[in-house]
């Protein structure tokens, strides 16, 4: 890796940090622009009690001072403050709990999408314009234009309500099957199409013909020469796929009542638990930004021909 690429990566990391800072700042000021404090809406508090609460949560200080405290707490202690509605719990603990379930869900979905997508894409490319290819392409096109909430609710309807194969509630292990399938369908379709077009591109290259001419076996050509090179576009999809899974899990966790971070996010918005809204937004957004960065760097690592810039 030459110095030019290192410079590029350094620039990207800087931009990534800048983006995370923008996310924190935007989130903070946008949330603080909401009229009325977080204690409105409940039973009318006595002025003394309200003042005490405000002092406890640091809301009596000017906004810029609150912002600086918030920012330095995140940077130094990774502390997002206490939740307002779930008394006695720290935002970071709630996020941590939700994250455990969501990460499991997301990683399984991503794994399934990668394996199935690459296999289907390769099969479609090798059987180009045959019936298998046509069927795969039609199905993936359909899945790509179906929003995740439609897919999730339809799966819920078919497998949980009508056939009763899986429970509708995502709290048990069997209950995670449907959410995982819902989350993986779109990325699977996308990866299938990416692999197919990349594979078709590679199969037309001269070095494939050379390999065939010198008598390399079919399997070795497919796995050693063609597939390896057609995975490059799939790697660039790594970041966007994670972003999709994160945002998709918000709605999927709502449908299947999975106790993950996405459900926390939606609930915190409905309950107007602003510290939790801010915390979840910042954590999820940073996650997406960092994954995009990793995806871009990986892209470079697997294919040395690509010159970043």
């Amino acid at each position, binding site marked *: 890796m030459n110095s030019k690429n290192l410079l590029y990566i350094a620039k990207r990391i800087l931009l990534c940090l800048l983006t995370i800072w923008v996310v924190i700042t935007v989130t903070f000021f946008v949330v603080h622009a909401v009229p009325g404090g977080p204690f409105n809406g409940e039973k009318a508090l006595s002025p003394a009690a309200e003042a005490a609460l405000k002092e406890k949560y640091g809301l009596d200080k000017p906004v810029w001072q609150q912002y600086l405290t918030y920012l330095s707490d995140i940077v130094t202690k990774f502390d997002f403050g206490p939740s307002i509605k779930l008394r006695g719990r720290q935002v970071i603990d709630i996020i941590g709990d939700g994250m455990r379930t969501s990460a499991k869900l997301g990683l399984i979905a991503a794994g399934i999408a990668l394996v199935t997508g690459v296999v289907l894409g390769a099969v479609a490319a090798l059987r180009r314009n045959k019936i298998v290819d046509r069927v795969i392409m039609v199905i993936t096109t359909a899945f790509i234009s*179906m929003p995740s909430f439609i897919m999730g609710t339809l799966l819920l309807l078919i497998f949980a309500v009508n056939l009763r194969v899986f429970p509708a509630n995502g709290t048990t292990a069997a209950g995670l099957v449907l959410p995982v399938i819902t989350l993986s369908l779109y990325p699977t379709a996308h990866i299938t199409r990416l692999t197919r077009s990349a594979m078709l591109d590679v199969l037309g290259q001269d070095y494939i013909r050379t390999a065939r001419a010198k008598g390399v076996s079919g399997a070795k050509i497919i796995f050693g020469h063609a597939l390896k090179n057609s995975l490059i576009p799939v790697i660039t999809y790594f970041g966007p796929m994670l972003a999709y899974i994160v945002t998709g899990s918000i709605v999927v966790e709502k449908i299947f009542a999975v106790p993950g971070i996405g459900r926390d996010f939606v609930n915190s918005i409905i309950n107007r638990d602003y510290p939790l809204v801010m915390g979840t937004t910042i954590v999820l*957004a940073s996650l997406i930004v960092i994954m995009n960065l990793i995806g871009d760097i990986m892209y470079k690592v697997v294919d040395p021909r690509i010159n970043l810039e």
Partner: protein
Amino acid sequence: MKKNPFSMQVDLDAFIPATSEEKEYMVQMRPSSTFFRDGVKRLLKNKVATVCFFLIVAIVIACIVIPWFWPYSYDQILGLGEFGKTDKSFNNLKPFEYGETELARIENGESVFPHVFGTDSQGRDYFIRVVYGTRISLVVGFFASIIVLVIGMTIGSLAGYLGGKVDMIIMRIVDIIYSLPDVLMVILIGTVLKQTLGEAIEGTFLQSIGTNIISLFIVFAVLYWVSMARLIRGQILSLREQEYVLSARATGANGRWIITKHLVPNCISVIIISTALQIPSAIFTESYLSFLGLGVNAPMPSLGSLASDALSGISSYSYRLVIPAIVISLIVLSLNLFGDGLRDAFDPKLNS
């Protein structure tokens, strides 16, 4: 007489003046075609895109026309009697069923307009709610794309044409907004705007549209212009080095004239294509937000909120979920396929 092939003698026949028939044969047969006509021709050859186009047109017309003559309105609670009492028999009707008072009227020989998709849990005609939901989705998709187009085109062409420091600053901003996770930001800003906008627009005509839709538009305007701006900047960057720009400048044209009369018209096909592809993604986002309860204000329906409402009665009234699901998939799918067809037909770079 057999001619020696190596003979230098000139063949006089070759010099006889052509007859008018022969002249006509040499004339170019086809009338010249414009870029636009070529594109349309290619588009019509693409059967999938053509079918999708007519499907979209049919859906749009249906959304406009059906509410004119449909006897029920989207927020009319059919069971609501004169004295504020609600007739429960109107709630949760299956398709083509009638409420009690309607059954009595039918027995008296009156004709009652059928509830094609039945009614919802509050006794509202479901068909018209789906029609209105589709209308909202299409309106949001269309206007959001226009907003994105206008902002992205202005900023992108300025950045591309001016270059230098302006370009650098704009592109850094674009980079940051581009790497923001859009859906999270949409949810966050949408939620907050919903709270703050209410007072600001009270009493104006904007109030009738609803705070959620307006906040949705604002969010689109703030976040989604970046990819359009990037695209147009790239186009302008390559176009502004062309000779005709130089000659325009030499004849004394100012920057505004060059951008609006030379540069933008030359990247119009790219602009149209990406706007067409922006519409389905806007519809996608709107229905996603409505599904989470952050979209349109009740009682106004949207395809997303209809699907979300149907979740509670999913075991007995599953068609209420399936109908909006099919409509939204159909709209997004056909818009996507049409956009792809448009790109294939009009993108001159792919023609070669």
